[in-house]
């Protein structure tokens, strides 16, 4: 592993974590989607770089999938969904920004500690890739927890999946079939969530998931 290859991979993976923090910070839905698209572009770059470094051409397909679906199709679809639902002006977050950010930094520290101990003896690139991937994954979870708006939760879910893809590309020799099935399951999950969003909205007149907490079954 040359120094320069490692540095670029390090920069891109670190950039992914940073963009996760930006996702955590956004309180407007359009900005959230734009940042999510940015994360997907960064992911595509990171995966593409790994493909070049590891000399694994099938990873280019993974990068292309990330670019096509996550950077273009899903953000555009979510964008239109927000317009249709008429929630583009909503601002929301459950806890204060400071607490959320501190929790995020704590999660990153946790994942670094865990991963650096767990992967001792592996190559440096794989170690840091997996450590960063776990951070992205945990931050995605945190985004899902702190959002009340269902669209925000979808974005959190998708960004978690970005972490998974990053982890998978860091480990050498992931078969393409797995990659395809993950990509399609994400797409299907996205469609199902989309349908659910409209159903929730139909039932409760809002996509605020707190309304679901109050629902105790039965027809209104």
């Amino acid at each position, binding site marked *: 592993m040359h120094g320069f290859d490692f*540095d670029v991979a390090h920069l891109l993976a670190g950039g992914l974590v940073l963009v996760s923090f930006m996702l955590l910070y956004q309180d407007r839905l359009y900005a959230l989607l734009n940042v999510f698209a940015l994360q997907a572009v960064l992911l595509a770059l990171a995966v593409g770089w790994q493909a070049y470094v590891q000399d694994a051409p099938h990873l280019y397909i993974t990068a292309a999938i990330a670019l096509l679906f996550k950077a273009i199709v899903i953000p555009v679809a979510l964008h239109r969904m927000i317009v249709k639902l008429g929630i583009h002006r909503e601002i929301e977050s459950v806890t204060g920004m400071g607490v959320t950010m501190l929790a995020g930094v704590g999660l990153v*520290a946790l994942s670094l500690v865990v991963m650096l101990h767990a992967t001792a003896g592996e190559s440096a690139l794989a170690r840091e890739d997996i450590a960063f991937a776990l951070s992205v994954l945990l931050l995605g979870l945190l985004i899902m927890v702190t959002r009340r708006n269902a669209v925000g939760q979808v974005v959190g879910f998708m960004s978690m999946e970005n972490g998974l893809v990053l982890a998978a590309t860091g480990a050498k020799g992931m078969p393409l079939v797995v990659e395809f099935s993950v990509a399609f399951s994400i797409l299907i999950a996205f469609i199902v969530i989309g349908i659910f969003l409209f159903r929730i909205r139909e039932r409760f007149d809002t996509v605020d998931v707190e309304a679901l907490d109050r629902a105790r079954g039965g027809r209104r």
Partner: protein
Amino acid sequence: MALIRDLAVQGAEMLLVLILAPLVTGVVRKFKARLLRRVGPPLIQPYRELARLLRKEVVLADNASWLFRAAPYLIFAATWVAAALVPTFAVGLVFSWSADLIAIVALLGSARFFLALAGMDVGTSFGGIGSSREVMIASLAEPAMIMIIFALALLAGSTQLSTIAAYMLSPHVGLRVTLAMALVAIIMVGIAENARVPIDNPTTHLELTMVHEAMVLEYSGRHLALIELSAELKLLLYLSLIACVFLPWGLAPPGAGWSAYALGASSYVAKLMAGAIALAFFETAIAKMRVFRIPGFLGAALMLGLLGTLFLFVSRGGL
């Protein structure tokens, strides 16, 4: 003989920052005006303003104490020393051993302390509100700055600016995500510390928004000139800090010849101008923040510093 030469170079550096500081402010103002399609003041306008203020009589409030009169000199001295300690065109000068990042932060902190005291001294409400806001911003910006220093010091193995700059010049520093984060964070801190646009507007005289201007409202004559010059020096300090840590190319190595010094000085001026123009673009493109959003802005800087420090452990492969 060598000592005299070294002292001369150090003295030249101290004078250089003093002479260049108003020019940097002039460039920022000129470019901001040009971006708004105005002609703008000439580049030497800040010098003229200083000369005019120095000629004018000092008007003191009746209840101003000795502190009010002493503060401008203390502020100016601390800021000038801090600005002169940052390597501008050469590393390894005579006083480089004292050019510690923490010392520079401490010098700036004491300057700010006296400024805040002076703001409250006369007892006007504007001075008080300015001081309280300034201290709030400082209490958020300083931890972020210290965090950035930690990240840089862990990377370079020293908090001394000369050593850090020499380390950055060495070939084994690659693209580091930590450095990228530290750069963004130090720019954010610099914007907050210098009362630039998203935090405070340096040209405003609107009561509700001003921070720095509110504190110095009671000053006039040579006192005001010193305070204005210190503010200009502080802007120069942050620009040179960023230039020397993140763009160290052109810095003359210790014991270099005059040609290396000349090269260093010209590249330093070029870096300063580039920084001033970038600042003008940034300030024109962004709107001022509400005061209550400042903690979020500086919290992001703190977080970047913290993350940068954490990421260092990953790239080193141990914790």
